[in-house]
């Protein structure tokens, strides 16, 4: 009996994505306007992170570039990619629809409104992040509150409430743009909404890492159960699972991930839609392997796109624009490609 064959293939592919992520994680330190050889990158990292006694035979600017500029940015790219892709994958299961994306419940619109409001009120970058995060969570609470009062299927009512709350907050954001000072506030809002990882600081990172860590951990340990959410709720319940509770946990974790991602880097589209669907083709739909694969691949994807975004042109391209440029055609290719027999 050859029952574990296919699982072995899935597991090997997840592992391969993980290895690629590690390789590119370190390689990304070497990319940039200011060239740093990979060997120096590794030495600098080992020295600063683990206190290994290397003789500093490199330029001091290299250390600054690696530790203060590139490290936070690379880690943030990985975290945001991982979170958005994991959240997208989870939402797709909850809504039993492969077209679902992290902003489906209005979490992104809430975050954008929060950020725009904070910019209008002249808050600092930390204030903007916190405001974005809080409004994102607020929008989810509203969606849950309204969704539970709508009659009919739970997933559909959440979806409808999400669309409604999302468009309310979008309207709010538009209004703020209208009244914002066109000299400095409006460009700041516009730029923030485009999504960017530039200017990532260690401090932002710590703020983002906690909710992301919680969300990723919850999704990871529940990953097999997430399969049950893709069935009809009656069916899943009859197999002995408390579907309401499970859905609440998964949606909360996914929203936490989305809120933290959008709050720390703005609207970065397409990752949460394209990467899970790519992984479905590579790994299959069993969330035991699909969720970890989506998380790792999401991190890898955003890391690579960010490398391009900061190196392609002299002026940095906001990453939200690039993910759409890369993501949309790629998604079209995925959808139109012939299924293999």
């Amino acid at each position, binding site marked *: 009996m050859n029952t574990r064959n296919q699982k072995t293939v899935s597991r090997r592919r997840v592992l391969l994505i993980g290895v690629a992520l590690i390789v590119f994680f370190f390689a990304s330190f070497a990319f940039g306007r200011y060239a740093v050889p990979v060997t120096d990158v590794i030495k600098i990292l080992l020295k600063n992170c683990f206190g290994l006694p290397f003789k500093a035979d490199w330029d001091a600017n290299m250390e600054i570039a690696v530790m203060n500029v590139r490290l936070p940015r690379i880690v943030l790219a990985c975290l945001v990619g991982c979170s958005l892709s994991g959240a997208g994958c989870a939402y797709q299961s909850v809504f039993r*629809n492969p077209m679902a994306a992290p902003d489906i419940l209005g979490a992104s619109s809430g975050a954008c409104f929060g950020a725009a409001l904070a910019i209008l009120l002249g808050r600092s970058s930390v204030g903007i992040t916190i405001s974005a995060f809080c409004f994102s969570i607020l929008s989810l609470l509203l969606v849950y509150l309204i969704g539970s009062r709508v009659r009919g299927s739970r997933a559909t009512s959440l979806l409808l409430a999400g669309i409604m709350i999302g468009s309310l907050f979008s309207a709010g954001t538009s209004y703020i743009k209208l009244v914002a000072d066109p000299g400095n506030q409006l460009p700041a809002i516009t730029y923030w909404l485009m999504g960017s990882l530039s200017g990532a600081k260690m401090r932002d990172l710590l703020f983002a890492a906690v909710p992301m860590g919680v969300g990723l951990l919850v999704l990871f340990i529940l990953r097999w159960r997430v399969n049950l959410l893709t069935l009809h709720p009656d069916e899943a319940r009859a*197999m002995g699972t408390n579907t309401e509770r499970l859905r609440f946990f998964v949606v909360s974790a996914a929203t936490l991930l989305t809120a933290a991602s959008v709050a720390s880097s703005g609207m970065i589209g397409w990752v949460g839609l394209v990467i899970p669907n790519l992984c479905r083709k590579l790994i299959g739909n069993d969330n035991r392997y699909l969720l970890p694969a989506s998380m790792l691949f999401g991190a890898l994807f955003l890391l690579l796109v960010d490398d391009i975004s900061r190196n392609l042109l002299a002026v940095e391209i906001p990453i939200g624009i690039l993910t759409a440029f890369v993501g949309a055609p790629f998604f079209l290719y995925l959808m139109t490609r012939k299924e293999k027999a």
Partner: protein
Amino acid sequence: MQTIEVKNLSFAYGEADVLRDVSFSFHESEILSVLGPNGAGKSTLFRCILGALKAYRGDILIGGTDTRTMTPKTLAGHIAYIPQIHRPSFGYTVSDVVLMGMTRQLSLFASPSAAHEQQAYGALQRLGMERFYQRDFGSLSGGEQQMVLIARAVAQGSRFLVMDEPTSALDYGNQMRVLNEIRRLTKEGYGVLLSTHNPQHALGYADRVLALSGGSVLADGDARETLTEELIRLLYGIDACFADTRAGRVIVPFVSGVP
């Protein structure tokens, strides 16, 4: 021998009564077939029994215990549900599908182990479906999919199976194959509650028939005694002719006045 008792069950969606004072019981090793026209309350009855609807009046007891007091996990230990085959939202392999039947044996944070996979394989073997273990569920024929869903219920390890029109989406041959398999499972001790739109299936395979109309029980009893021309007329508003052949009794439905 365990029994599921439904006592004075009533259910309403808002103002509209769907079930009115429904009482019956069924036990292990028998097939109880629920007959009734569309909207008679068959699905609502099943959803109450499966614990998906709780706002009913009356009681549903398994071995004397009120199912409302049971967690989904405990209830799943008694009753497994076999839905109508439908295209799943995402394509799973047959092994993934059957493994989902193991849910109640796993803690919230656990994934199935190799031992669970062996059990899933064993459940497929019991239905002679093990050669499909690695296949894509979506690539199977309707009959094969239905058998896999039955295997999933067997893997769940409960004594009672509730089936929502198990033959409705199947071709003629597969209908008979699936019904024969269900018959075989009751010989092994499973109690089966199924709904059907075909009185012929109830006559050929069920031990007992429960006829629902407008949310009330119209008849409840031995299949051969209960299924009469009169009952068919009351349930479906058409006539029927019963005839005994060497393969058993057949029902030929017809509409009066049309030759």
